[in-house]
């Protein structure tokens, strides 16, 4: 069992995700139309697009909160040390990898009437983690909330709640991290911690799928940019491609529209 605080042991299992003809409709409203996308293990994908383009829907399907109306998703397991680079990564469909997925959503996903420590402990227990009290303590320490561990989340500021929400998502050391505008509401201290965390995750080959529509420094870490429009993939820099042109275009757009 890796000691808390240090990166997971060498050869962590990376998790990619593959969307195959995924369509999602809510009644007759089509949120996603035939999205086919393969995100290789270890990629850091910036998911761009205007409001209503389908980013949140895509993330919710990836997190197994929703089933697609048509098409399916599958997870790509890729163990670093055990296989040579040339071997094709295995795609498995059946087993539920909930233990390996973490998500930061629009809502905080926290119980306001529980303390920060109780919230993290609850989820640590639900994910079947070991060494819970020290994990929770370290997590609170890392995001700067150790002094407020015993306070109800209801009393937290927006920035503190967001920090706790992110800490919650990372608690079980997920290999696929889904972020829906995670920087929203973060204060300066939180943003710094968040960027640091993302860098560490990228170094660990944790797959990250981050949606954002505003300027966000963390976008510089992205290895790939995918933009959605009207439920479809509009631009995709591809695995191994250069995300910067797309990112620059989005930045230019957002400056122009004052988004």
């Amino acid at each position, binding site marked *: 069992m890796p000691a808390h605080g240090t990166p997971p042991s060498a050869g962590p299992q990376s998790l990619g995700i593959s969307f195959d003809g995924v369509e999602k409709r809510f009644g*007759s409203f*089509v949120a996603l139309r035939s999205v086919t996308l393969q995100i290789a293990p270890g990629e850091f994908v910036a998911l761009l697009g205007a409001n209503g383009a389908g980013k949140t829907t895509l993330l919710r399907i990836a997190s197994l909160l929703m089933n697609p109306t048509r098409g399916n998703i599958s997870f790509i397991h890729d163990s670093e040390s055990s296989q040579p680079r040339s071997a094709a990564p295995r795609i498995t469909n059946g087993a539920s990898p909930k233990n390996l997925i973490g998500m930061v959503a629009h809502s905080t996903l926290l119980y306001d009437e529980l303390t920060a420590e109780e919230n993290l402990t609850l989820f640590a227990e639900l994910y079947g983690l070991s060494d819970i009290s020290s994990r929770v303590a370290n997590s609170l320490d890392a995001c700067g909330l150790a002094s407020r561990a015993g306070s109800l989340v209801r009393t937290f500021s927006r920035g503190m709640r967001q920090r706790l929400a992110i800490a919650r998502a990372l608690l079980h050391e997920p290999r696929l991290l889904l972020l829906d505008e995670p920087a929203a509401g973060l204060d300066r201290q939180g943003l710094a911690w968040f960027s640091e965390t993302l860098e560490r995750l990228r170094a660990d080959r944790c797959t990250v799928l981050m949606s954002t529509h505003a300027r966000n420094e963390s976008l510089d870490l992205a290895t790939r940019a995918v933009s959605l*429009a009207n439920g479809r993939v509009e631009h995709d820099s591809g695995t191994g491609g250069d995300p910067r042109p797309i990112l620059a275009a989005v930045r230019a757009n957002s400056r122009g529209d004052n988004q």
Partner: protein
Amino acid sequence: MKVRIALALFLAAYVICAGYAALFVAPDESTMHEVQRIFYMHVPVWIAMYIAISVAFVANVAWLRTHQIKWDWLGVSAVEVTVVCCTIGLISGVLWGRPAWGIWWTWDARLTSTFILWMLYVAYLLLRGLIEDPQRKATLSAVFGIFASLDAPIVYFSNRLFRTQHPSPVFFGGPDSGIAPEMARVFLLCMVVISCIAILILVDRYRLERLRFEYEELRQEVESRSLDSQFASGKDKS
């Protein structure tokens, strides 16, 4: 289209025949005389209701298992038919009861149970009306529908058990025992006709639901294609 009109006309003709038979051909009943003729509508309506409830149950289960939207269409249609039949049955029962036995209502086992059944299925329709998302609407109402269907026999059973310990007049036993053959024929005719009406309504309602869905689909498709083309020509998205 023509077939449906033809069927409707055909059925209308049968309804007229059945109505005539019930009112004039069937022999006069010894105790209740004219009022008894409600029986020719009243009982078939209950039979139609039980069939509709069974269809609803099957549709609910099928939706949950297959997630094919047609089962939801069938489910809501069947429940609406159930509620309509139940309402007609209850009202006609009251109308029959008053002149025949002098009281509007009594809390005997069967009446009470049926009233509860009515409430259950009305609740189903209310539930549907209050949920926006169509997927959720279908799934959650199906779950409730299954609970309601499971409850139906329990309701009847408990009322039987309850009310037989507190005896009260039983109203609807009897017509099947020793029914005169002429009456039986008219009854059969009315039963067939009313069942056909119920089925026709069911099918029509199903069709309405399907058309609504297809219309929405088309509308959305048109909307998004226009959005697509706007997008392609480089205009601002709204």
